[in-house]
Each structure stands twice: as C-alpha cells, then as structure tokens.
C-alpha cells in the first residue's frame, strides 16, 4: 500500500473482491482497477494481497475461476461469484453496515 491509500481492516479485502465480481466476472487486474476507480484512488490493491485473497476465496468455494480471452485477446483468468459467494456477500455487507454504524455512533458520541 502506498502512503496515500488507506489500510484495510482485516477481512475487508475479501468483501471488496466479492462485491466487485458480483457485478460481473473479471480478471485480477480488472478487479484491482475497479476497486481503485470506484474508491477514487483511495484503495489501491497490490497483487501481493490480491491474488492470495482470490485463491483463498476460490478454495472456500465463494468464487470460481475460468480461463478466457481478455479485451486484448490475451489469456486471462476470470473470477465470478458462486451461489454460496452471493450469500456470503450479503452476510458480509450486512455485517459491515452494522460495524460501521456502531463505530460511527461511538465516535459520534465521543
């Protein structure tokens, strides 16, 4: 992570990846780009954390991968959400909401 970007709390990377591929199958580069774009450069994911996370998610069955042709006709591995992944995403999102709300309230009252 460079200086300008934020440190992700643990486990959040998985959530981000799941959300990103929920919008459609994507390869590792595209996922990283998307997260960077949507967060307006606040979050830059390096491949050192991205790929292990992707592989971990695949082992747990939350995403599945497939080789395909990329935009410039090179071979790339695409990841897409599975049904259990979808459920997991919903659960994690709800959990995140609750966490953020709770932390904000505490900070708000401080």
């Amino acid at each position, binding site marked *: 992570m460079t200086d300008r970007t934020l440190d992700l709390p643990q486990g959040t990377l998985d959530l981000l990846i799941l959300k990103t591929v929920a919008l459609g199958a994507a*390869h*590792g*580069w595209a996922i*990283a780009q998307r997260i960077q774009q949507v967060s307006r450069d606040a979050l830059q994911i*390096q*491949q*050192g954390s991205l*790929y*292990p*996370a992707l*592989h*971990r998610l*695949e*082992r747990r069955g939350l995403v599945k991968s497939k*080789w395909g042709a*990329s935009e410039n006709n*090179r*071979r*790339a*591995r695409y990841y897409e959400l599975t049904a259990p992944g979808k459920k997991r995403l919903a659960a994690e999102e709800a959990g995140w909401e609750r966490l953020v709300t709770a932390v904000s309230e505490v900070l708000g009252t401080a």
Partner: protein
Amino acid sequence: MESELSEELQFHFERQVEAFLEQGCSPGEARRRARLLFGGLEQVKEECRDARGISFLETLRQHLRYAARLLTKAPGFAATAVLMMAAGVGSSTLASWLLGQAAFRALPVKAPEELVSFRSPGPHPGFCSGAQDSTCFSYPLYRDIRDRNDVFNGLLARSNLSAELTFRRRTERVSLELVSMNYFEVLGVEPAAGRLFGQSDDGGRVAVLSHEYWTRRFGGDAAAVGQSIVLNNLRVTIVGVSARGLYSLAPGRSPDAMVPIEIQEMLLPVHPMLSARDYSWMNIVGRLKPGITRQRAQAELAPVFQRLIAEEARTMPVSWPGRDQLLSRQLELIPAGRGIEPEAGWMLVSLSAIAVCVLLAACANLAGLCLARAAARQKEIAIRTALGAGRGRMARQLLVEFLLPAAAGGLLGLSAAVGVAGAVTRMAFDEERARSLSSAPDAGVLLLAFAVSATTAILFGAAPALLPALGRSLGVLNTGNIAPLGLGQASFRKALVTAQVALSAGLMFGAFSFARALVKQNMWRHGPGKENAITFLLDAAAKGYYPAQAGRLFQRLEQKLSAMPGVRGAGFSIGDMSRFELEGRRLESPEDRSLWLQVSAGFLGATGSVVVEGRGLGLASEWPPRAVMVNETFRRRLLGGRSPVGRHVRWYGSDKWAEVVGVVRDQEAAGFLAPSVYYPYSGATTVAYYVRTGRPPELLFSAVKELVEREAPGVTPFELQTIDTQYAEATRSQRFMTAVLCVFGLLTMALAVVGIYGVTAYVVTRRRPEIGVRMALGATAGSVVSMVMKEVSGMIVWGAIAGVLLTLLVCRLLFPAGVGPNWGDEYPELAAGTLVVAAAAALAGLVAALGAARIGPARALRAE
C-alpha cells in the same frame, strides 16, 4: 497448477506495464516501475499456493518422494525390510491360497449346497477299504437306499481303483474313479468334449476321461473321443471328457478317468465286489430334494439304514465281537458341497501356521527397524515439529515411510507366490494331490489372501512405527539427548524384539523336530539290508490271475529273482493298517491299528530282518493265519516291552486267533515306522517285491522287466524304483517341511539377533551418561556389562517363555492328538530350539554390552 499461476501473474504484470506506458513512461521505465510495484514474484506465488491449500495427492507425492529418498540412502535397511515383508506376505498368501483350495473350495458342480455325503462311524462287517472307514459302504447298501428313498433327487456312489490302461501299445498304471451311472447327472456338470454317462450306457463299457488326463496324455485332442482303450483286460470306449477343474469328490484325488461301477466285475473278475455285503468300499453322495433338510432326510432314512445294517451283520460269524456296535450304527448326512470330508491335512495347516509366524516376524522386524531409524532421526523430527509440521503430518510421513517398503515387499511377495505356487505344490505333495491343487489360479482367492496378509502387516507393523510422531519433542532439542521421548520407544522396541525371539524360537523348534524325525528315519534306512535294493508292484488280478495262480506266479518270480546274478535276496509282501484285537486288551481308539503284512518266505531274509525273540514264520499259508510275528514297535507300544510270544491276536472280523511266535527287528516301511504283524502270504493278487542286490540297484530294472514279461506276459511291473527313491517320495512332504522350517527359522532367528543387537546398542547409547558416571565413580567394566545384560536377558527370557507357550498352544490347537507327527514327546526339540535362539540372542546382546564397557568415563560424560 504452477504454470497457470505464473501465467495469471504475468498477465497482471503486463497490464501494469501498459498502464505505465499510457501514463507516458518509456518502455524501460514502465517495466522498471512495474517490477518495483510487483515485489517478489515467488513470494506471491508461495502465498497463493498456501492460500489454495495442497491437495491430498500433492501431499502424498511429497511424502513418497521423501520416503523414497530415505530408502535409497539406506539400501541395507531397504533391502532387508522389503525382502522380509516379501517373505511374510508371499508365504501367507500362498499358504492361505492352498488352504482355501484344499479345504474351502466348493466343488464346481450345480448347487453344491444341496449335496450331502453319507457317514456312519462304527465297525464294518468284513473288509473296509477307503481313506476313511466311516464313509465307506457296500454296493448293495448303496443300491438299496438308492431305490428306496424319497428324499434325494439322485444318489451317486464312487470309489477308487488302480488299473492298467493300454492305448496304442503303451501301457501305464492309471488311477480310476468308479462311479455310478448317474454320477454326472446328479452333479449337474457338462462335458468338455464328447458326452457324459447316460441311461443307455447301463453296464456299458464306456469311460469318461478327466480333463487333466486328457490334456496330459491325449494332448487335448478332440479325436480322443470315440477311441477305445483297454483297462486291465477289458476294452472300453472313450465317450467324453469331463469339465476342467472337476477332479473327484474325495479330497486330494485326481483321477485319470471315470468308469461305471457296474463294470467292476469285468475289470477285476478276480475280486467281484458288487454283490458283497461284507465289503465296504464306496462313498455315497446325494442331492437333497428342494425343501428337504438334512435332519429330515436323516430321520427318514434311519429305518431303511437299520434294516440294511442288520442284513450286513448277518454275513459275519456269530462270535464276532463288533456285532452290537454294528447294529447300533447311525447314518449321518454331512454337507458335501466341498467334497467328502475335505480337510486341509496337517501339511497345509502347518504351512499356514509357519507363514503366519513369518509374517508377524517380518512386521515386527520392519516396525523395529522403522523405530530404530526414527530414534536416530529424533533431532530432525523435533525440528520439523517445531517448525510447524503438524502432528498429523509427521504421523502421515512416518506411516508412508513404513508403508513404502511394506507395499513394495508385499507386491514382490505376491508375484513370488504366484510364480512359485506350482513348484511348491509339486515339492510339497505327492503327484496326485499336487495335480488336484495347482489348478488355474483363482484370482479372487489369491487377491483375498493377499489382502488379508497385507492388512495384517499394516495393522501390526504400522502402529509401532507411528510411535515417534506421538511423543513430545521438546526435550530432544534442549539437551541433544534422547531422554524423555526415548523411554516409551525403547520399551516398544524391546517388545518387538521379544516377539521376534518368541516367533523364531517356535520356528526353530519346528525345524529341529522335523529334522530329528528325518534323521531318525534315515538311521533306520541304513540298517542292515537297506542299501541297494529295488521295489516294484505287480497286479496279477488285472490280468485275470486268481489267488492260487497268482501265488504260484509270485513264488516262481521270487525264486528266479533270487537266482539272478548280483541279487542277495528277494521277497514280496503286501498289507495295510488294520484294526485288530489283542487277547486280553481292549483296543478301541482309531490309533490302535497295526500294519498287517502278508509276507513271502524270502521276505524277511531279503530285507535283512533279524529275529530278536522266538522263532520265524512257518511256510503254512492260510487265512486267517495261525502263527504271526510282530515287530519291536508292536512290542513296545502295545505291550510296554513285555514279550508277546505266546499271546494271541486276531484280525478284526475274523473268528480265529493267531499265536505270536516271534519278534522281529524294526524296519520302516516307505518312510514310517508302525507296529506290525507279519503272517505268511495268503493269496493276495497284488504284491510289492523287494529285491536286494550287491550292485547298483538301477542295473536290475531291465532285467526285472524282462523276467516278468517272460513269466507272466501282460502283467507289467509298476512303481519300479530303488528303495532310495521310494523313501524320497514317501518323505517328500516331510523333507519339504523341514527345509521350509529351517530356512524360515534361521531367517527369523537372524533378524531377531540383529534386533537384539540394535536395541541393546540403542539402550547403551541412551544410558551413556549414566554409564560414564558409574565408571567415573569406580564401577568395573564387568559390572557395566552385567547391568546392560540384565536388560537384554529380560527380552530373551520373556521371548523364550512366550515362544514356548505359543508353540505349545499352537500345536495343541492345530494338531489334536494323533494327527501328524507325534508332538507329544517333542520336548527336547522345544528346549533345543528355544536354547539356540536364546544363546544367539544373548551373544548379540553381549557384543553390544561389551561396547558399553569400552566407553571411557570422560567421553561418556562429555556427551552429555
């Protein structure tokens, strides 16, 4: 996997480079910045791999590679372990395969579970011939039950007969099976060629060849069907060949051809047996009607059987003592799906026991070796565990290290078993039995046998091998000493070695026992008159000689043989084990039989028998005999050494007593020594000649053949061989067993000895500091040695005790009294076997202990 990961990461890298290019960097700059951003590629790969987790196969491959590497670094260990496992698994596979064939294989007939055989223990009127008395019945009895029952879908009868078969001018002795006309129909089998017996063959002169004989003598040629052959003096036609794999209902027999019973009197007119109620020679087997149980059939047949038995009793003289017992005989129906009283025989049972011992010894050996190596690798294991290798992973690693040589040995053993099966059966059994056993290997049985032995190996061997993984490892790293973890391990290794000592003691006992029996018999053989002799059999009845004619022929031949150059004596005899009565003693148990031999005038002289008491036999030839002689074994076993002269004996079923007039020195007959009764030749039509010569015996063969051909054209001598060959044949099984026991006994003993040495050396190493301290404090070398020997002696003593108890237990279980070799008075051999193993083990331990004494105290303490 690997290349995909690289490709994936490579793609990401290139997109990163493109992004930098778009931002305006030069290609070189773009690549440099991208590489900086990327960081360590290998690290990322490693993390991805970890994240993925490793598949089971991957792990297994790693374990195997590591185990294989360890093995190649220690070829001695690998070779020993693999070979021992091969020996263990191979021999138990082979033994259980043979055992299964002999005792458990169902007959290849239709619905074998419906077959029952007749059995009725008790005295028989008149003559009884057959492997087992209780399953022999007379032909009239068979016929009457066959025609008067409601419970069978068919009742067949069978018996053996040896005859001369002539085909295209070649004559040979064959083993025939006389069967009732409905034999094949009741069994429900199909022919392999031609046809089987049918209704139209009643009384017909037809024969069905066995598949084995057809392949052997006729080359499997279909043109054999329809040919005519001459059996004894009778011309019969071959109508077909029976199915492959169908031998006989009697266990261990492999007949060459089947002929109908009804032609018995044409085959052997000299001894008509079909209408004799006092000749029991047939086995009877029936197929129960569906829905009828054995018990019900038994109950329904009982009255018929009683009536027929009563008729048979009437053929016996009034004074016959067995009458009451005969009349109270019951008929039992025994399941015959596997044959008539199939039994493994003591040989196969012993082989199985030996194989199990070898297998267990091999497992103990392998487990001990694995433990020993693990002990040497204590540090390595500790480090690996400390670095994070899970307990489970360590256990799996050690398990694979044990299983790899075990599996390799097992497969080697399996192929060896298949390879030597044929040779082993031929070495271990006589020809006919061997033929009936080594049929096409049944893959199913073989695999089952292999699976059983492999599972045993794994269960007994893997458990101790896993031990090192289960202990604590901390102590090792700290002190560099093998202390806390070592304790449990050492006891286990000691237990394993103790087991090996016990097993090898048992096997050595067996080796000594058999060897002694052989040596004893060998000594008999080289008594006076035993060298340089030949023997042959003549069957005069086959060519139509009646007893009186046969007698004259035999005596003429005896005279002419004696007159031949180089011949020192000639005589003939024939007989078998019979029940009899000894005046003044009840002889009830089946072991109370004697060999009743009718002998010619020249027999005792030719065989060099010495009269040790009383006088010789007269020339009077009659049945029942008036005067008999007995041998020393008879005197010893039945009369406790007291003189039998003047006492009376009676052949079971005869009504006249004979007086014992003399005692003759023992001589073994064809490999075994039995109490014997000798009486003058009284009309047997098949006799065995004994001709002693001063020259090499083989020189007589052609002369004998010519002489017999001249004097009795058509009668051919068979089983013409030297006495040495006959002895070798008769003792084939025993010699095989002795060889097997010696080889395996020495093998397991050697391994036990090596094991003792290893464990003792290990113990010494473990206690090195202690020894150092003791010696520094003034202990002598002697006391150190004795301290170590105390440990060793524990193993040896326990091993010896366990070995003795185990051997006794196994012998009692497997060999009920009277079967097989006489185990009762084998205690000297038991002691000898145990002592030999104990001594060797003690020696090994001593050598290791002496190593302990050579440790200087300073060095020992420094090792701390």
